[in-house]
């Protein structure tokens, strides 16, 4: 079998404050954004961003306080991240600052109350 490029990947934890600079570097290096998602782990929220270039994956992960989750939007660098950031806002309660296309919590219309982050404290997001 030929070399399996899909097995080559890394997941790097960075400080939330370093996110924009790290993402800017990846953009400059020619990477495209593959996906972004949130995970509840204990009292924290993890946000994982996956980038791809020539079938090589690299990931950047930040941690947020689950009670008051807030992060910088990377939509100034990758405008199409608005899909993932609006989803994370609606389902996990994360507020993204400077989100390029903000649907104001009306992207996901579901019958159950959101966010599903058990530690999230309503009213603290503003």
């Amino acid at each position, binding site marked *: *079998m*030929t*070399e*399996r*490029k*899909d*097995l080559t*990947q890394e*997941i790097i934890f960075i400080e939330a404050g370093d996110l924009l600079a790290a993402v800017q570097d990846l953009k400059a290096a020619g990477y*495209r*954004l*593959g*996906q972004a*998602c949130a*995970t509840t*782990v204990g009292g924290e929220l993890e946000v*994982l961003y*996956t980038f*791809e270039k020539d*079938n090589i*994956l690299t*990931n950047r992960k930040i941690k947020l306080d689950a009670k008051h989750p807030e992060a910088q939007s990377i939509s100034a660098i*990758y*405008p*199409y991240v*608005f*899909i*993932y950031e609006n989803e994370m806002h609606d389902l996990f309660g994360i507020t993204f600052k400077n989100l390029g296309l903000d*649907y104001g919590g*009306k*992207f*996901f*219309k*579901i019958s159950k109350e959101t966010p*599903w982050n058990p530690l999230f404290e309503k009213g603290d997001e503003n």
Partner: protein
Amino acid sequence: MAKRTIIPFGPQHPVLPEPIHLDLVLEDETVVEAIPQIGYIHRGLEKLVEKNEWPEMVYIIERVCGICSFGHGWGYCKSVEGNLGVEVPPRAEYLRTIWHELGRIHSHLLWLGLLADGFGFESLFMHTWRLRETILDIFEETTGGRIIFSVCKVGGLRKDVSNETLDKIVVRLRGLEKELKELTEVFLDDVSVKNRLVGVGALTKEEATSLGAVGPVARGSGVSNDVRQDGHGAYGELDFEPCLEEGGDCYARCKVRIRELFQSIGLIAQAVSKIPDGEIAVEIKGTHPAGEFVGRMEQPRGEAYYYSKGSGQKFLERIRVRTPTNANIPALVKTLAGSDLADVPMLVLTIDPCISCTER
């Protein structure tokens, strides 16, 4: 000054087999903005990872979508296998590739039928879905199911297919190929079809790249994005190039999918001629995923991501499925702006939206 109105498109609409809502902001009959809203069929499938052990989650992930169900099952297994560091036997990788390409033919034929139905060509719709039955019959004969198969498991497969059966499948696909040639000539050459597709919803290569488009939407704009080229499954042993078109319009997206029908038949024939004998699964006992892994697949609609995170327990902490329709929504929103209201159904259809996938 043009009159500005907002027209709700969906969640129920004749061209939408599944519900999505678009608020179309119009100036006279030109769309100036499209605001999407999803969630009508959100099932919380990812959340079920907290209540189902990781070997069983494959049954749930397969149910993300009824069209590319095998691919979702494979994507999940690939992510967990990467997490566990499991090497899948070559015969299983070949069989996975064959079923996945059959799934691509099934998906594209389903889509072509919906497209024909969308522009009012009923007989074309019926002929397309008649041919699709051939693929569903092959699924049924080899897996026992027509839509959900449950043959994929972490570590390999549950079912083998004999080499004789595989040879017969190739013969049937060659017969299908002849009928497809006649059928697809109508899609590509009929003037009434071209009137609805050519020049509609054009997306340049630069726009497709900057909007993160994937699959036939990206390839229809000349973006060479095809995850199969990373060599996973048996793809590293098969000879193929991504099907690219330069037009970027609805016609180009349709042409990419038609070319991929024939490409998939060729890939299956190659895989059947090269498939090795041997085991179809490795046994995994006494271990649980304890790390993180991001797997990728080229689903019929484009690139999909499968993120799994485990903590050494029988339940994963997280499974995330990022589907191609999700990635193509920004391109849809962009192409809708500036289009005529009458072209909106074709534009929505030609990204081949799967809302079940998008919402999970």
